[in-house]
Structure formats: C-alpha cells, structure tokens
C-alpha cells in the first residue's frame, strides 16, 4: 500500500516535470532514430579519385568497373601532384593509380598491377578501397580470361553471405547502438535525478520522517522508472523497425526480461549517484561521465573480440556485455533462449551485484 502510494507519486511527478520528460523522450525515442537516419556514411559509394596513366581501352574498361555499390569516382586526376592535394584535403579517401604499362602487360600475359593509395588517417575505412579494388581486379581478370586458360585447375569459389543484415544497412546498427547506449544513461539518470530532486526540494525529509522504510523509497525510484525505460525502449525499437524496415527476429519477451534486468542493475548506479550528488546538474554530469567507461566495457562501440586482453576480461564484469549479446541476438539474429542462456545468467548475477552495491550505499545514507 505504502509502496503503491510512492510509485503512484513518482509517476505523477515525473510526468509533470518537463525537463525529465524531455530527456527521456529525446534520448530514448528521438536520438536512436536520429542517429540512424541523420548520418549518411556512404559505405557503398566509397569516394575515390582515379589517375589513369595508361589511357587505353583496357584501362578505361577497368575504370568503368569502379562504381557503386562499391566505389564512387569523385575525381579524375591528370597530374601526379594532385594525388597529394586530393588526399590532404580529404576530397577523396583513396586514389587509384593505373600505370602506363597496364594494357601492355595484360596483353603480354604478364603481371600487371594497379596502385591504391589510401588515406591512412581513418584507419577503419582506409582498407576498404584496397579490398574493393582487389575484388574488382579479380573479376576484371576472370572476365577477360578464357576458361581454357585455367587449364583444368580447380578453383574455390567463396560464396560470402552476410547474415542478419544482408544488405549491410548501417542504420540498423547505428540505431541499435544508440538505443543500447541510451538505455544505460537513462536507467542510471532517472532514479538519480528523481532522488536528487527530492533532496533539492527537501521532500526527502517528509518521506524520512514518515514510517516509510528506505527500501520502499528506493524501490519506488527504481521500479516505475525501470518500467518507463523498458516502455521507451520498446517504443524506440518499434520506431527503428518501422522507419528502417529493421526486423525484430527473436522473442520480444526475452528482450523485455533482459532489458528489465539491466535497467534495474543500472538503477543501482543511479542510486550511487543519488547519494553523491546534491544538485540535479551535478547528477546529470556524473551520469554522463560514468556512462563513458560503461559503454567501453559493453561492446556497443568496440566489439568485445576486438578489445585488448585487459579490457576484454574487464567486460566479463560488466552486465552490459551480456545485455548487448542478448540485444543484438534477439533483435537481428533471432537467437532463442537456448542459445542466449549463458548471457542471461551472467546478466542476472552481475546485475544483482551492481544493484546491491547501489542499494547498500543508498540505504546507508537514507536509512
């Protein structure tokens, strides 16, 4: 009864506080959609410049193949000096150089070559042009070659299939990444903000002087806000699914359970903030700063397998690591519980520990 009264009050006061409603609506509902749609990184039209020294029919045929959905020739270069300026000024991310002897060598059955000069400043994308051109070169060669020239040599044909996101629609990834990382901030921020606000307004005294138990205050901060966060998450998932045709392949129930678990666990961190911060701005900044290491230990930004060993082992201690596996697993991969149960177990154990720490501090301060 008392707990219900508290929860009722939390929901009412939350809904009448425009700043908090804005934060939740903006970050849960709008930000993932915006992150997915606004930024248009053209993976399929990688910008390159071409410097064709050969100027032959063969070389032109080759250049013809440099086109979307792989590459996009933004510039044609006629002097060597321009290679420098194009790359320095970031007018294109790679320059493809076709040497003078290109057609001659090919005709002679010799070893022809093309050069790909990439801007190494952006390490993640700098290899893309090279990889694309290598693939294009093989196809160019195979198309020219008579089957006879293989002379009975058996070859392997690698049929590469991208799974879960066949068309490599980056909106799906960016939307989910933003959503998962937003859940962390919101789940941490909401209970913290509501508690700090009670401190600021002095209403916490009114609660403490009544027979309410501190754990009831705590539960009333966590439970309704967790519910709200989960609802917002589902809404956001719905928006992403609708706007970008993103499939939700697995069990929504499993996703909801996992989200609920992680939100409650993160609420423990929110309780920690609530004990440390005295004003709302401080709480906001604390949540923001805390969020940085958490996301680095989760795998939203860097996949776990790409992490250096020390960091990799640290992720084993982060509930988010398990949550993200479940998140991507359920939404994009359609993975069932039978596959994801180890992650669910890890999430439960670590989440409980994280929550316990926050609850312990909270009860010590307000108990």
């Amino acid at each position, binding site marked *: *009864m*008392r707990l*219900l*009264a*508290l929860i*009722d*009050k939390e929901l*009412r*006061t939350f809904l*009448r*506080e425009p700043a908090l409603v804005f934060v939740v609506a903006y970050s849960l509902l709008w930000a993932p959609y915006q992150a997915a749609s606004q930024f248009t990184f053209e993976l399929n039209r990688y910008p390159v410049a071409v410097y064709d020294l050969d100027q032959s029919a063969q070389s032109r045929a080759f250049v013809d193949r440099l086109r979307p959905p792989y590459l996009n020739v933004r510039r044609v270069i006629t002097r060597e000096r321009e290679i420098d300026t194009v790359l320095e000024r970031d007018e294109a991310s790679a320059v493809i150089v076709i040497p003078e002897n290109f057609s001659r060598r090919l005709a002679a059955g010799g070893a022809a070559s093309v050069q790909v000069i990439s801007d190494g400043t952006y390490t993640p994308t700098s290899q893309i042009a090279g990889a694309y051109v290598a693939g294009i070169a093989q196809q160019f060669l195979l198309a020219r070659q008579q089957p006879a020239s293989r002379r009975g040599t058996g070859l392997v044909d690698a049929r590469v299939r991208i799974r879960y996101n066949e068309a490599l629609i980056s909106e799906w990834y960016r939307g989910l990444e933003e959503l998962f990382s937003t859940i962390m901030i919101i789940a941490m921020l909401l209970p913290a903000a509501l508690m700090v606000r009670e401190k600021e*307004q*002095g*209403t916490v*005294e*009114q*609660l*403490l*002087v*009544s*027979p*309410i138990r501190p754990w009831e205050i705590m539960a009333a901060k966590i439970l309704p806000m967790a519910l709200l966060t989960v609802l917002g998450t589902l809404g956001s998932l719905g928006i992403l699914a609708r706007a970008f045709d993103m499939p939700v392949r697995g069990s929504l129930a499993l996703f909801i359970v996992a989200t609920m678990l992680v939100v409650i666990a993160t609420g423990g961190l929110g309780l920690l903030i609530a004990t440390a911060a005295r004003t709302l701005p401080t709480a906001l900044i604390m949540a923001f700063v805390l969020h940085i290491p958490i996301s680095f230990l989760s795998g939203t930004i860097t996949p776990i397998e790409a992490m250096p060993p020390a960091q990799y082992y640290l992720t084993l201690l982060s509930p988010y690591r398990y949550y993200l596996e479940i998140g991507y697993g359920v939404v994009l991969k359609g993975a069932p519980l039978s596959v994801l149960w180890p992650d669910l177990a890890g999430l439960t154990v670590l989440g409980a520990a994280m929550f316990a720490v926050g609850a312990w501090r909270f009860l010590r301060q307000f108990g």
Partner: protein
Amino acid sequence: MTDPRPIIEVRGLFKRYRRAPAVDGVSLTIASGEIFGLLGPDGAGKSTVLQIAAGVLLPDRGQVLIDGIDVRRDPEAVKRRIGYMPQGLGLSLYDDLTVDEHLRFFAELRGIPEQQFREHRRTLLDIMRLGPAAGRLARHLSGGMRQKLGLASALIHLPDVLLLDEPTTGVDPLSRRDFWQIIDRLSRTRGITVLLTTPYLDEAERCHRVALMHRGRILAAGSPDELKAAATTVAESDRVRIEDVFVALMSRGAGPADASARVLPTPAPSPAAVPGPSLLAGTPPEPAIRVEALTKRFGALTAVNEVSFEVSSGEIFGFLGPNGAGKTTTIKMLAGLLRPTSGRGWVVGYDVSGQVDAIKHTVGYMSQRFSLYGDLTVRENLLFAARIYGLGRHQTLERERTTVDAVGLGEWRHVLARDLPLGIRQRLALAAAIVHEPRVLFLDEPTAGVDPLARSQFWELIGALSHGQGVTVLVSTHYMDEAEHCDRLLFMHDGHIVSIGRADELRRRAVAARGTVLEVASARFREAAAALEPIFPDLMLVGRRVHVFSRHPAGDQRRIEAALGAAVPGSIREIRMSMDDVFATLIERHVDVVPAGAASLAAGTGA
C-alpha cells in the same frame, strides 16, 4: 539632515509576469537622506520595484527617476549612483571568494581608483567590523557576516542611494541590531538615502517612512506613526503594531482572492501569552517531550550542545534563535531524522535513539523549506501523505476530507501545490503534517515569508490544534514577535540554550539584566541622538526615535531632559522591551556566563 528634495521618484509603475501583475500601479517619492522601508509579505512585489529602480528589470509602464535621471532611458548613469544588494542573505555572494576579494571585485567592476578603494575598504571593514575576517572565504561566514559583506559590496563606491532587497531576512537579532546601527550611521554621517524591503513588519519602526505593499499595490505610505494613527480610531497608537495596521488595511481592501483566507473553523484563543490550559489543569505526569543533555556533532562542529528541556502535553513550545542556532537540528533529532551524538530524548515516552519507528507514527513534521511535491495537487499531496503513514483506503479519503476542511483548503483542492500562494502552501504543509493525527507536531519555521494575515491565521490553527485537541506543538521561528503566541519559549544560540520560560518571565529577566527601555521622541531625532550618546553609549536610533536602556528610569529621565535641554524638544516615556531586545540581552548575558560559546559568537558578529 533630511533634505526635502526627492532623490527617488517612482511614478505609476506596472509590471506583469506571466500570470499575475507583480507591481500594479506603484508611486513613491523618497527624499534625500531618508531611510525608506518597503514592507510586505513574499510576493507583494517589493523586489520587483527595487529591480526596476536598479535598472535590471524593464517595467511595462511607469518610470523611476533617481536623482532626476530616468532609469529606463539611461540605466547605466543611474547604476553609477546606486548601490544594490540582492535578496537572499548573501546568496548572491561568491562562496569561493574571500571577503577582500569580494570588495576588490566590486571595486574593479565599478572602476574605483586604487587609492580610493583602499580608503573605502578600510572604512567599510571598520563600519562592518569585518576586518578580522578579511581573508576568509564567503562560504565560511556566518549569516550575519554574509549580510554585512553583501552590504559592504553594495557600498564599495560609497553611493548616494542604497537599494537593499530584504537585507535582514533570516539574520539573528544581534546581527539585525548591528545592521540597523550601520544603516543609521551611514544615514547620519554620509546622508545616504536607503530604500529597503523587508517582510518583518516590526522593522517599520526603524525607518523614517514606510510603504505597506500587498499584491503589487501600496496599501498605505507614511511615517510609522502616521500609519498607526490613520488606521486606528482609538488614539492608542502605542499598543498598535504596524502588523495590525497591515492586517486592517488588507482585510479592508481584500478582494475575492482573499476569500480563501476568510474563515477558520475553530475560534482561536487570545494571542496574549496566557499559559495553555493543560499547564494549569491536572496534567499527566509524563511530559510529551523530555530531553536530557542532547548533543549533535557534525565533524568538528557542535550543532547542538547538551540541551535539556521538557515540554508538557498540549503545550505550544517555541524555539527561538537565529539561523544556525541549532533549532532545526534539535527538531530533526526529536522527529527521528537525525541520530543524536550523545544525550537522550523521549517523545511521548518513546526513546529518540531506539524507538524511531514508534516516534514516526506519533509525530507530524513540517520542515523549514516547503517540502511538498509541487507537481502534485493539494488533494494528491494529502492523499500521498496519508497513504505513506499506512492509512487504509477508506481512512485516507476520510482524513483528506476532514483535514482539508479543518485547514480551510477546500477551494484549492485541485490546484498544483507549486501554484499556491505562499500562505496557502504553508497551510497545505501543515495539513500534510497532521493528516495522520499525530499527538506531537514539530513545526520548523512554518511562517517564514508569509503575509501577516496568513500568519495570524496560521497561528490560530496552531492554537486550535493545541488548546482544542491537545496536540503538543514544538515550533521554531525567527520572528521574535511570534513568541507571544507560545505558551513557553526556549531561546537558542550557537547550540546552547540561552533561556527558557514564558514570554513575560523572559522579558522580566532581560529588564533585570539591562534595565527598561526609555524612548525619546523628537522631531530633531538626530540631534537628540548626538546629544545623548555621551551619556548612553549603547543608545539606538530606531527610526525617528532614540532608545536607551535604563536601570533607574526616573533618574535617567531627568538626565535626558537635562541633556536635551530646550534646544531639542522631545517627549520621553518608558516602553515595553521588544522581544528582539529581550533575546539580544539574554544572549549577551549568556555569552558572559558561558565562555565556551563566546569565542565563536565573537567571530560570528565580528565583535
């Protein structure tokens, strides 16, 4: 001397915020050298007038002229001539700057040459007695010192006109007395004009002229005596307080908006300090509250130091003292919010250290700041309060209804708490504290900033609860005049009990310690003060009157007459010592008695 030339002229000022008009047609004329008080409760529009005069807020209509300059047209020229001290007891100071750094900052903002700055600094530190604290960070200053630093900062360029927004709110009586002496000295020696606002109506007496403001309008303006004379048909202006004048004017001009405040269910007992009936009748042997050597330390600071007292059942027990005296800490310990460091206490027989749960069910608590949910309506707040005390559904609804009726909140029931006028909010806070029918009620500064009418209604409610229903009430306040509403009083200062007793007993003690007060009224009050100062070094100029303490009134009266001679005609009479003076006197005596507290007190007042 007061120069009839007007230095501040306010003409037909209007200012409207989003909903209500804040200033609704205000006109004033203030003569050079005058100390002018703008009196009224929170939200009356006082600060708005001051901010418009200071050139930081644009009026909708009307104009303010300072020294003949239109503030609207040339605010910067006006700013050179004025000093302005914002509201909030030095909230506008910078916690991380020292006293000296503040003075330097304000001096440089105003482009005062170094040489001149040094002179002003010395003068001001001297007047304010802040010299020893010059290197201290503002965050480590007491309330009184912050107030003085705020004043010094506003005065660094020694302006002709000083605008002070609630300079005395929340300041202890000693510092308040200091403050008025400083203002008086500035007015006497430099001929400075002071326009100040205050919610303490008793401070009217300190001003040459005052205007009473309510809901953006001026109810009346003039010298305190004129106002009293105008408001009362009986020419017994001595008994009449400005507060009564205000209440009379308010109820006369009350529109429908005041209807809410109209009736109260229970007739209140006379406000005079009659001991509560429970004291006289056969009272139960067990006191409602008993405290023995209760102590609370926060790190090195001892907030409450070995305090012992008893409160009888059904009594209204007043805690008086400045901010930081330890009132709130004591109340919090009794309400089960804080654990005592040492000592013991019982509330209705329950131990405050061990039986906190039982205490929580039996007491109601209204905290210093408004601490209800602004985002909930009156009804929602009360239902919430009832439910967290574990009342059942039926009982909750029932109690909400009866409490709303008892406190007179009927028509506000569905209004969000944050939209309530201050006086109504305080009533709501009281309602929330009594919704579970507690036997003991703790009220921590329940009336701060509330208008006099709402305040007197509030006290009637308290009286009804206590004397009508037998609820024990422990109430703290820094309005000394509210002492009269309490059955017994406890004066606290610096964590210690200064004195306990009925109001008249305490006044007798103070008179015994310091003598009675003689008031000298004279049209040429400044000359009178100058003439009397050699005989009575601790005399006070209170508005247009001079107050002196006298152990031998008859003899002193003759000495005064002799000193004034024929040159300065005036009348002399003995008056009742104000509660402020009672308190200040008892503190001073207490400081002599308890040397431990003396060091910090001296630091607190800069003595």
